[in-house]
């Protein structure tokens, strides 16, 4: 078996930002032929940078390959490179009737359309599900908006962190007892959840179609993909009327269970000691200090009740050691412990290296770098980076020429008329 799992599936992706990009890349990694549709008229903010052409030298160049925005900054932006690979990139102006007609030809040859525009955008462009079903009756479309296409807030503007706020997750994220005002606004964990659920929705609909021949349009609300990941908090409220609060790094039934300072600048280790057997091993690994034999720490109940003191005593031991050393000493005796890593640790990590997680990729515009890989492995159909992150319109010739059978003259005309192209038009901000 050499054909990858989704080798017979063609996907059209309008995936933007993180959620959409992650979902389409997962399908692409598993062998689907993904065609990413972009345009030279509209710059997708946060997908290929904040703006198309940040002025060289004036804007902070972090986030761009080798800290240089280059001639075509949109081809050098880190997040696009991190989560878009194995896809064919085309451009098409969907605001003109001819663009829509070409798009429909592509739809007629495709299985799945993924889009995460605000709800209603596809309809306004004249390529909503009702229209496309006429073109390809068994087409599957999955639309992932913040709050879904139905319901009182369907028109609300949302970014990933808004999704987190209204899902209930943000209120739970933080130090125990802290003020809600001090929640870090930056992380967008919900994009992980929604991206993966987005891909799963497409595959569920595909499986159904394989059996029945029937396509469908799935209205996915990103918030609703997140709430099940808070299931135990929902259940505690529905069962006991209890409203969960942030617990920091602690666990309701396990102590010690925390993050401790180590030797070095801003270095930390996590430790979780789950059973009495592990507690005994943990004490011995620390050299059986006197405090560890005290009555108040002799049972899980006691350790939970005296957790503040316990954590302070443990930190006196960890602060003398580096995080990887703590991990080794405790793992040797069967206690869960691990470093709190930064990206450079992960790039050096012997485990990820042995598993071949990072792959060297040479990109036409961004040069050669080590790229993070896939989160699943298939024993018989290994997946890898077949196509580097696509440049804008890079595969116009392949898709329009080979798949749709257009002539060179025809494609030349489309380029002249700016229906397709490989650079954003000069007026695009």
């Amino acid at each position, binding site marked *: 078996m050499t054909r990858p799992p989704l080798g017979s599936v063609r996907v059209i992706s309008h995936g933007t930002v993180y959620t959409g990009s992650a979902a389409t890349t997962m399908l692409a990694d598993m062998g689907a032929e993904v065609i990413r549709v972009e345009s030279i008229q509209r710059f997708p903010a946060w997908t290929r940078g904040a703006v198309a052409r940040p002025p060289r030298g004036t804007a902070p160049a972090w986030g761009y390959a080798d800290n240089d925005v280059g001639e075509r900054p949109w081809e050098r932006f880190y997040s696009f490179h991190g989560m878009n690979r194995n896809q064919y990139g085309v451009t098409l102006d969907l605001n003109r009737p001819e663009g829509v007609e070409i798009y429909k030809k592509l739809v007629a040859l495709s299985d799945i359309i993924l889009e995460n525009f605000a709800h209603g955008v596809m309809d306004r462009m004249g390529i909503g599900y009702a229209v496309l079903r006429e073109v390809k009756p068994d087409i599957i479309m999955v639309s992932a908006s913040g709050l879904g296409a139905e319901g009182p807030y369907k028109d609300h503007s949302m970014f990933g962190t808004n999704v987190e706020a209204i899902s209930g997750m943000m209120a739970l994220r933080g130090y125990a007892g802290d003020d809600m005002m001090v929640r*870090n*606004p930056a992380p967008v964990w919900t994009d992980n959840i929604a991206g993966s659920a987005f891909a799963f929705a497409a595959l569920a609909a595909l499986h159904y179609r394989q059996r029945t021949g029937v396509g469908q349009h799935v209205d*996915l609300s990103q918030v609703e993909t997140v709430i099940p990941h808070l299931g135990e908090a929902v259940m505690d409220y529905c069962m006991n009327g209890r409203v969960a609060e942030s617990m920091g790094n602690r666990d309701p039934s396990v102590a010690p269970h925390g993050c401790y300072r180590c030797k070095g600048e801003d270095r930390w280790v996590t430790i979780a000691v789950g059973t009495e057997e592990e507690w005994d091993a943990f004490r011995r690994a620390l050299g059986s200090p006197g405090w560890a034999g005290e009555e108040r720490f002799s049972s899980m109940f006691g350790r939970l009740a005296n957790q503040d003191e316990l954590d302070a005593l443990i930190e006196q031991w960890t602060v003398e050691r580096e995080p990887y050393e703590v*991990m080794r000493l405790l793992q040797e005796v069967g206690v869960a412990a*691990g470093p709190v890593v930064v990206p450079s640790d992960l790039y050096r990590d012997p485990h990820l290296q042995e598993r071949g997680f990072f792959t060297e990729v040479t990109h036409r515009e961004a040069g050669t770098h080590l790229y993070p890989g896939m*989160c699943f492995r298939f024993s018989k159909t290994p997946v890898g980076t077949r196509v580097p992150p696509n440049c804008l319109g890079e595969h116009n010739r392949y898709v329009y020429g080979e798949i749709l059978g257009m002539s060179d003259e025809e494609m030349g005309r489309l380029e002249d008329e700016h229906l397709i192209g490989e650079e954003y038009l000069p007026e695009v901000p």
Partner: protein
Amino acid sequence: MEQAFTDVRVVDLTHYVAGPYCTKLLADYGAEVVKVERPGTGDGARRMFPFWGDDPHPEKSGLFLHLNTNKKGVTLDLKTPTGVEILKQLVKDADILVENFEPRVMPGLGLDYDTLATVNPRLVMTSISNFGQTGPYRDLKAGELVIFGMGPHMFVEGEPEREPLKYPGYKAQYLTGTNAAVAAIAALCGSSAAGEGQHVDVSIMESLCGPPEGAAALMSYAFSGRDPERPGYRRAGGSPWGVYRCKDGYAFIWGMVPMFWRRTVRFLGMPELLDDPRFATPGARRENQDDFEAILLPWLTERTVEEVVSLAQAQRLPATPVYTIDEVVHDRHFNARGFFDEIEHPVVGRLTYPGLPFRLPETPSQPQRPAPLLGQHNREVYCGRLGYSVEDLVKLRASGVI
């Protein structure tokens, strides 16, 4: 009624969170999932918080009840030869097997992929683990906290002078469960075409490092050579951005980018700010952020969350309430969409559960079934599906196999 995975049979050897969430997704969309638990004790999640009525009891864990809806439950001791034999019979006509033991366990039981593939060549075996089935960390011990710290998210969460923070609950495990469901269904699609299954290796650590968020953090380092700092809540990117106190709660406002400044001014109803030199350019606004927040903060505390959100949204400024979990459960939008499910369970009765992450319009959902009691479907599965007699069940029970 017909569901997406009505034709899919799953043998479920999972416990705790990541594996059960994977098989819950398969079961919730119609797969016949047979969850195999150890006789007597069952899935460890049965002993995890929260408990119905705060009463620790194997049938009353809210975590277990949530993670195991729509599954059938049997007991089987895989450490006995008879138990292994019965499992192979279940595998024979299954499409997918999902397990999340430590990687050495399945081979130790004589249930490695190669053995199971001789029983059923079409089988898709999906193994979920902390670090994957290979590599130097394979057998390390890690729960949610430890594994979360070994991905790129934890270091940047929390205040710069304090310890890094994990995310609430079991975020890494839920995410990996979803990724595993994606991989299992894709592999099933491939095995239907090829007539041959395969072994899928899903690692929590790699899920944390994968797309989108983890991969973005790693790529940022690959491109810049710089590790991130832990920024804390400081609104370094501009204002308004973050959680703000209102009269009766909190709102999250995402408005720091230049293109949202005019919307922000209209939202506040303060057109004079457009002419204020302190706020004339994005750079000036960053510089005078404290001045702006001195205007913004008191204005917000005079208004309710609902007022703030609706005034902001009227200007297409992304603002949302910061909900606590009770507010999520009672919210009119989620309820209008019919998100939550009501499920009746023989021990804890009728409760509201989190609903499905999406609905498939071609297969409107059927009434959901509750998580199985320990061994609830032994007779149905062993007699009905595998053909054992009731007398056989008695013998198996007496010898502790089920």
